[in-house]
């Protein structure tokens, strides 16, 4: 594997994590703890670290979040807990993600087994898709005594965690370990099974008390001007290909243009630089003050040496020359590239699942569908499309299913 592609930033040591934890003001009614979409309680786990109870900190994180080690690495904390942090009133927020990473790494090294399977209640749940929302749903259901079968269309579990987020940001070992935890808890993952093709929704409904659809938004969006262009590849395809090959791909372009301004675009552009692409230009529709990518991602991308141009939209393409026009001013930009990667968003592909999709989104407000046995969660349900939101939605749908089937055991 390419060193540059795989290398994660160094983690804290016992000494440095204590230094960071000592910066924490240990607030009363801690604002950080109210700011996590997944209800992580940093106020509590940082206090545990501060008082040298790292195992207690690990329990606080893990019991709330089946993907604690993943969230520690990929969560845009600047928008949630770190945005709320009182320390900002003095200088800069506590590095909550970094402390969480230290704690979950410790949990792994200490071979802690925190999640506990609930006593069997005789009910069984099918989950379609093993991305973050499916995994969290499975965990919560298993903790409450349900049997869980997960149907995954690919050969590996994890969805975008496995096939999307680059190795340097989220090592596959970490993803695999989190999934192993959930499998050990009792999740039965059926690989290479596409629901609606290899097995029908009716089969699932017949064999389970409820079906939770968590297929995500895995299909890349495109623009008509790029149709049929051989220089064009979608961001999701590119990232999946690189991750699968562990960074060892043969067609690294000399000059690449990435179109898009979200975290996915940043991942693609940074990955290209880490694979030694010479010139990488990212062109984004948004201007910097409205950028969608997290500050951390944007900063990392700039540091990697990517040229980022904001406020331009592609207006024409001639072979491998893309013309962009500025949204507001009279300005044009032409870039010739050996590779054009589109990171302009994803949409749902839910064929034959009996899920109603209107213009790429589901019309349902919550997690219920017209079919009383079928629920949705993850990116196809309303709300943000981040890992931390997937965890939130996974817990919510599990609550709802439990409530509906057994009146809620907890």
């Amino acid at each position, binding site marked *: 594997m390419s060193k540059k592609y795989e290398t994660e930033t160094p983690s804290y040591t016992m*000494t*440095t994590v*204590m*230094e*960071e*934890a*000592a910066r924490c*003001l*240990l*607030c*009363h*009614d801690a*604002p950080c703890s109210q700011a996590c979409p997944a209800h992580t309680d940093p106020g509590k786990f940082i206090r545990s670290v*501060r008082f040298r109870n790292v195992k207690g900190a690990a329990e606080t994180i893990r019991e709330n979040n089946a993907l604690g080690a993943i969230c520690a690495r990929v969560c845009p904390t600047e928008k949630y807990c770190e945005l709320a942090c*009182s*320390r*900002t*009133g*003095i200088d800069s927020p506590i590095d909550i993600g970094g402390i969480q990473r230290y704690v979950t790494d410790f949990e792994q090294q200490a071979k802690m087994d925190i999640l506990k399977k609930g006593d069997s209640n005789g009910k069984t749940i099918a989950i379609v898709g093993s991305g973050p929302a499916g995994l969290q749903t499975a965990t919560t259901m298993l903790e409450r005594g349900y049997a869980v079968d997960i149907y995954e269309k690919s050969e590996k579990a994890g969805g975008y965690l496995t096939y999307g987020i680059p190795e340097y940001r989220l090592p596959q070992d970490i993803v695999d370990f989190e999934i192993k935890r959930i499998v050990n808890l009792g999740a039965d993952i059926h690989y290479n099974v596409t629901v609606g093709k290899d097995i029908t929704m009716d089969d699932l409904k017949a064999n389970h008390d409820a079906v939770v659809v968590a297929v995500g938004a895995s299909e890349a969006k495109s623009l008509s001007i790029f149709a049929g262009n051989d220089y064009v590849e979608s961001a999701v395809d590119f990232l999946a290909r690189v991750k699968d090959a562990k960074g060892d791909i043969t067609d690294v372009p000399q000059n690449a243009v990435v179109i898009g301004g979200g975290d996915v675009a940043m991942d693609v552009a940074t990955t290209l630089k880490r694979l030694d692409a010479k010139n990488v230009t990212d062109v984004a529709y948004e201007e910097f003050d409205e950028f969608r990518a997290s500050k951390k991602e944007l900063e990392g991308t700039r540091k990697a040496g990517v040229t980022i141009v904001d406020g331009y939209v592609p207006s024409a393409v001639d072979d491998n020359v893309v013309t962009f026009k500025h949204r507001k001013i009279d300005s044009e930009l032409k870039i010739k590239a050996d590779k054009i990667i589109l990171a302009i968003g994803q949409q749902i592909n839910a064929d034959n699942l009996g899920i109603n999709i209107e213009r790429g989104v589901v019309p349902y407000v919550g997690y219920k569908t017209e079919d009383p046995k079928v629920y949705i969660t993850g990116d196809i349900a309303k709300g943000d499309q981040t890992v931390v939101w997937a965890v939130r939605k996974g817990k919510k749908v599990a609550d709802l299913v439990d409530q509906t089937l057994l009146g809620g055991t907890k």
Partner: protein
Amino acid sequence: MIDKDLSVDFMGVHFENPFLLSSSPVGNCYDMCAKAFDEGWGGVVFKTIGPKHFKIDEVSPRFDELTKEGTPFVGFKNMEQIAEHPLEENLHDLKKLKENYPDKIVVASIMGTNEEDWEELAQLVTEAKADMIEMNLSCPQMTSHEMGSDVGTNPELVKKYCAAVKRGSDLPMMAKMTPNITDMVPAAKASMDGGADGIATINTVKSISNIDLDKKVALPIVNGKSSISGFSGKAVKPIALRFIQQLRTAAGMELLPISGIGGIETWQDAAEFILLGATTLQVTTSVMQYGYRIVEDMKNGLMHYMEEQHVDHLSDLIGLATKNIVPAEDLDRDYKVYPKIDWDKCIGCGRCYISCFDGAHQAITWDEEKRRPSVNINRCVGCQLCNLVCPVGAITTGEKVMKPGRQGKAEDKQVDSSRLTHF
């Protein structure tokens, strides 16, 4: 760069500055002391020299540290005894130091097991041209009960051995006292009766710093076991200051020459010892952690402090705080001072609210919506705990009021401290 007179006269000897290495691993040989002199120390107390018949045999490992959050060396535990080099070599080093550094002060620390030892050692170090003698009556980790703190807690022995040293030498002599005693005054008085010219204190505090929770052995682990031994560093400073205050306020000891020791690592620590009556200052633990170079900032910082205090000579500051420490029964108990909260500075962490409720008098109310504390003066006793825990200095001393039925003017009460407004 600022230049002020840091020189002091102590027991008749002139020091270019008050900073000495204390008798310990940091002054164990010629090369170490020479380097310390080169880096600016005014003197050294050479590591304690013992009698020829007492064999030193040290353990490994021999140190431990107490930490807090990310802070190392809050306190330091040490099991080393006295100098392990042969007597002749130590005497040779003393002589060479004095030859090569005639303006620096070389203090010979000695320790015997009986009167003959003490007298002979005093004689030998005098012949080696030491400027001064320090009697080590206080090391808490000696392998002989005829040595160290077991002697220093026995006034009779202290007096006898001081007299023996005085028979062997006419050099100025200070007796180094142990803090492992309820009242240091009887031991200090006994040493003066025996002929001591001054006191050095404190030596280390008997301690167990940490216990290995898996092995169930205290640290450091010496082949499966450990021992009680001396504790030093920042954590012992308050104990040292207390003993110095008690010595300087005992009847007849108001002008007692003192060499202050115990957790000194900054100029502020140094100034505190001086203000309580120490003339010279001895340092080890912070040197072990950071090296001899720390003397640069202690000297320079003290000079700036002198400038701020408008004094030309360091000696003008000696003992200025002594009179302001009085028995608890003599303190003014007629008033209280409320905290004042600056909401512009407040960052809404709520630490004052928690501490006041859980550790004081439930006198701070908390606005959950605005995340803002306010003081309920009906409950507030004026303890100022909130002031101490506030991480941003948003809480200061505010309105002063007389307690009901008491005489006097509240506004005349002096309660402000720059230490409480250090943000």
